[in-house]
C-alpha cells in the first residue's frame, strides 16, 4: 500500500491533540504502522496548529509534509493548511470550500443531534475513520477505553458521534475515497521519545529525577511523577535547573542512579554542575531536549543546535559521553547505555533529544528488552581494606562505594584533590596524576562507542552524514533521491562523544544534514576525522527535517 498522510488542524485548546491521538490509536489498533508529529505555537489557546498522522504498512517513522487527507476544525485552520493538501487529497471540514471534500458541520450536528457540542470532535474522528476505510469497531474500542472513566453516558455519546461522522463520511465518500485499511495482524507500540525515555530510565534502575519544567523536556518528569511510587522513583520539581542537577548529584553520590532533563536555557544553567560531575566523578544522566535558540527562541519547535555546546559544556577538561538517539526504540536502548556508562566511568552523560523526537509518536514492533539490562558498578565494601574514593588505577576508574553502606568513608571534592578526596596543592605529583587519571578513562570509553550506521555507502557517490533524530528523514531522502537516479548513501551518528575509531571511505562527496544553521556535525567531524565536506543541508526554521526537504535542497544546492 502507499503511505497515507493525514493532517488534523485547529487552534490550541480546540482539541486537535485528542482527535489526533484517538485516530492514531485507532489506526494502530487496526494493525498499521503509524507515525505522528505535531507543530504548535508557544501558547495555551488560539493560534493554528497541526497534528500529522502518517499511515503505512511497515514503520516509516518520518514526517511527510503533504496531506492526503486534511481535517480542519475551524475556517482559519482550513485556510492555513489547505496549501499542504494534495490536489487528489480530501478535505474534511464544516464548510464546503473545494470539490474533493467531506463537509459535515460537526458542531451543529453535535448540538442538534447529540445535544452537546463536546461531541463535535468525535464526529470528525468518525468521519476521518470512514474516509480512511478503517473499522468503526476499532474506533469504538479506542473511544470506549479513552472515555471509560467519564462514565457510560459520555462513552455512549462518543460512540453515537463516531457513528454519525463515519456514516456521513462514507456516504459522501462514494467514488472519491479510494483508501481501505482492513484489519491486520501487526501490533505496534505507538510511542514518543518522552514516553520511552522515562520507562527506559526506570528499566535502567534510575531512582531519582529532579527537573525544572521546560519544553520539550517536561513530559519526562511528568510521567515519572505520576508513576513514581509504583516504580520506586522519586521525582522532584526543583526551584531552578541548578538545583535540579545538584540534587541529582547528591542522590548519585549516595549510590542511587539519578537524572535530570531540560532544554537549552536550562542546560546552560546546569553547565557548572556538569563540570562538578566531571571533577567529583559522580555519575549523572542529563537529557537535553533541543529546541531552536538562542535564548528562549522557539519553545515549541525543533532543532539540533546543541551538538558542539553539549560536547564542550563545562569549564575544565573531563570525560563525558554524548548520545543522540534516532528514535524511541534507540532512545530506550541509549538511555540504558547512558546509565550504565555513567556509572561505569563515573561521569556525566548527556542525551540529546529534540522537540521532534520528544513529541512525535513512532511505531515500534518490539523493544527487544532482553538485549539490554542495567549493570551495577558499585564496588563491594567487604573486599576493600583501605578505601580511597579516588584511588589511582591503571584505567583511571576508582572503586565507588556508597556513604553509610559500610565503615568506609566516601569523600568527594570539587577542588583538585588527593586519593581520599581532600584538597591538594601538590602540583607536581597529585594534580598531574588526577588530571591524567580522569582523562585516561576516555581510552576505554572510546571502545564502548558504537560505529555510525552506514547505509548504501559502498555504492554511493554522495553520502549524507547526519545525527540524532533525523535518521528517518535521511532514509526517506535516500529513497527519493534514488528514485531520481542518484547514487546516494548515508552515514548516521547516534553516539557523538567521544567519537569511535572510524574512517570515511575515500572518493565520495560528503554532505552533512542538520537541523541547525552552522553545520555543527561537519565542524566536529572535520576536527576528529580530518574528513572534508562539500557542505551542509541545513534546516533552521523550527520544523523537522523531512525526506522531501533533503531531496529538494540537494537538487537546489548540490547538483
Amino acid at each position, binding site marked *: 500500500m502507499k503511505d497515507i498522510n493525514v493532517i488534523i488542524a485547529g487552534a490550541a485548546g480546540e482539541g486537535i491533540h485528542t482527535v489526533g491521538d484517538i485516530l492514531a490509536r485507532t489506526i494502530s489498533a487496526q494493525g498499521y504502522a503509524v507515525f505522528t508529529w505535531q507543530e504548535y505555537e508557544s501558547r495555551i489557546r488560539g493560534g493554528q496548529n497541526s497534528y500529522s498522522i502518517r499511515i503505512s504498512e511497515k514503520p516509516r517513522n518520518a514526517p511527510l509534509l503533504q496531506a492526503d487527507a486534511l481535517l480542519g476544525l475551524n475556517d482559519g485552520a482550513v485556510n492555513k493548511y489547505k496549501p499542504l493538501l494534495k490536489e487528489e487529497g480530501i478535505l474534511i471540514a464544516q464548510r464546503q470550500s473545494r470539490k474533493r471534500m467531506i463537509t459535515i458541520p460537526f458542531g451543529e450536528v453535535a448540538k442538534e443531534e447529540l445535544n452537546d457540542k463536546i461531541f463535535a470532535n468525535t464526529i470528525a474522528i468518525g468521519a476521518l475513520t470512514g474516509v480512511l476505510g478503517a473499522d468503526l469497531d476499532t474506533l469504538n474500542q479506542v473511544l470506549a477505553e479513552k472515555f471509560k472513566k467519564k462514565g457510560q453516558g459520555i462513552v455512549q455519546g462518543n460512540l453515537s458521534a463516531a457513528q454519525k461522522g463515519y456514516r456521513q463520511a462514507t456516504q459522501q465518500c462514494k467514488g472519491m475515497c479510494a483508501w481501505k485499511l482492513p484489519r491486520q*495482524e501487526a501490533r505496534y507500540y505507538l510511542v514518543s521519545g518522552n514516553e520511552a525515555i522515562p520507562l527506559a530510565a526506570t528499566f535502567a534502575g534510575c531512582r531519582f529525577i529532579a527537573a525544572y519544567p521546560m519544553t520539550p523536556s517536561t513530559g519526562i518528569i511528568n510521567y515519572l511523577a505520576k508513576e513514581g511510587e509504583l516504580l*520506586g522513583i522519586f521525582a522532584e520539581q526543583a526551584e531552578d535547573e541548578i538545583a535540579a542537577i545538584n540534587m541529582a548529584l547528591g542522590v548519585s553520590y549516595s549510590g*542511587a542512579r539519578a537524572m535530570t532533563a531540560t532544554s537549552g536555557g536550562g542546560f546552560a544553567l546546569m553547565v557548572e554542575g556538569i563540570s562538578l560531575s566531571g571533577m567529583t566523578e559522580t555519575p549523572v544522566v542529563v537529557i537535553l531536549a533541543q529546541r531552536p535558540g538562542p535564548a528562549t527562541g522557539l519553545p515549541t519547535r525543533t532543532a539540533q543546535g546543541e551538538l558542539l555546546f553539549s560536547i564542550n559544556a563545562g569549564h575544565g577538561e573531563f570525560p563525558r559521553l554524548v548520545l543522540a538517539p534516532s528514535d524511541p526504540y534507540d532512545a530506550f536502548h541509549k538511555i540504558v547505555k547512558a546509565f550504565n556508562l555513567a556509572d561505569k566511568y563515573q561521569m556525566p552523560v548527556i542525551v540529546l533529544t529534540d522537540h521532534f523526537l520528544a513529541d512525535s509518536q513512532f511505531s515500534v514492533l518490539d523493544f527487544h528488552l532482553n538485549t539490554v539490562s542495567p549493570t551495577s558498578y558499585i564496588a563491594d565494601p567487604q573486599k576493600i581494606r583501605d578505601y580511597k574514593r579516588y584511588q589511582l588505577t591503571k584505567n583511571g576508574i576508582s572503586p565507588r562505594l556508597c556513604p553509610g553502606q559500610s565503615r568506609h568513608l566516601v569523600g568527594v571534592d570539587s577542588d583538585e584533590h588527593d586519593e581520599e578526596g581532600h584538597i591538594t596543592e601538590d602540583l607536581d605529583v597529585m594534580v598531574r596524576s588526577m588530571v591524567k587519571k580522569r582523562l585516561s578513562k576516555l581510552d576505554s570509553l572510546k571502545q564502548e562507542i558504537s560505529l555510525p550506521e552506514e547505509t548504501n555507502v559502498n555504492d554511493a557517490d554522495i553520502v549524507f552524514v547526519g545525527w540524532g533524530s533525523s535518521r528517518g528523514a535521511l532514509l526517506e531522502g535516500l529513497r527519493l533521491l534514488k528514485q531520481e537516479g542518484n547514487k546516494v548513501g548515508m552515514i548516521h551518528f547516534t553516539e557523538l562523544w567521544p567519537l569511535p575509531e572510524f574512517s570515511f571511505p575515500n572518493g565520495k562527496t560528503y554532505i552533512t544534514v542538520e537541523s541547525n544553521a552552522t553545520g555543527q556535525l561537519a565542524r566536529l567531524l572535520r576536527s576528529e576525522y580530518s574528513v572534508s565536506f562539500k557542505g551542509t543541508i541545513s534546516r533552521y526554521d523550527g520544523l523537522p527535517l523531512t525526506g522531501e526537504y533533503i531531496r529538494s535542497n540537494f537538487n537546489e544546492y548540490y547538483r
Partner: protein
Amino acid sequence: MSTIDDYQNNVEIQWCPGCTNFSILQAFKKALVELDRMPQEVCMVSGIGQAAKLPHYLKCNFFNGLHGRALPVATGVHVANPRLTTIVVTGDGDCYGEGGNHFLHTLRRNPDITVVVNNNEIYALTKGQASPTTPLGESRTLQPKGVQLTPLNALAIAILHGCGFVARGFAGDIEHLKNLLVEAISYRGFSYVDVIQPCITWGTHPMNWYRDRIYKIGDSYDPTNRESALEKSMEWGNKVPIGIIYKVASSEIFAGRFRKAVSTRPMFEFQPPNRKIIFKLLSAFRASDGSHKEAHTD
C-alpha cells in the same frame, strides 16, 4: 560509642592560625560524640569558602561541592539515604549569596538535614568583599565607600517558611554551640543554625566586640511562639541573642509520602526495578485487543 579521636584525621588545616572556624570544628566533633554518631553515619555537605572547607577536617563522609550549591546536594543525599545524618556547613556568601534561592526553597521542602552557616559577615576566602550579612556602611574591598545594601535577615525568612528549628550560635562559646548543634542534629526536620564567626583577618570587629554584645536567650523565652521568634530574629546591634530562637514540631518531612509508600531503606538497597511493571506500562502504548500476544515475558 564514638570518641573525639574517631573524628580526627591528618589533613592539614588551611585556615589562618587562630581562626574562629577552629572552634566550630571543635563544637561539631563534640556534638557528634555526644550524639554517639559514628563517622560513617555522618555525611557533611559543603560549598566553597573558608567555612565550606570544614568537612575536610573531620573524618566522615563528605561532599564538598560548588560554591552556593550545598543545599540541593544535601537534599539529594537525604532523599537517597534518610538514615545518614546529613549536615551542611556553609558560609554567609555560600548560603545567602550565591545559594540564596536554594536556601529559600530548601526551607519550603523541609528535608531532615541540619544547616550550619559560619557567618563571618564577609567573603573571606576571596579576600574581604561584602556578603549579604555585612552591616550597612561597612567598607570592604569591593565596597570601599561602604556597603549600601540592606543586610539579609535569614533567620526571619526561615521562621516565616516553616523551618521548625532556628538558632543562632557563637564561635566564641564552644560549649553553648555544641549544645545547639546537638539539638539541631537531633531535630527531625530541617534545622538551621547561624553561627557568628568573626574573621580575624578580614573582619571589622575583634572577638571582644562580639562578646560584649552577645547574650544567651534565657529560660523564660518561649521558642514556640512565632511572633516573638520573629522579633528575636530582628534583634541586632547592641544586644545580639544566641540560643534557640524558634522551635516547633516539624511539618511533614520532604519525600515523606514517597518513603511511606515505597520503603525507608537507602535507595542503593532498593530491589532492582520490576520488569513486569515496566512491560505493563509499556504495553499501555500498544493496542491490545487479544489478537496479538505479549512479545516479552522475560
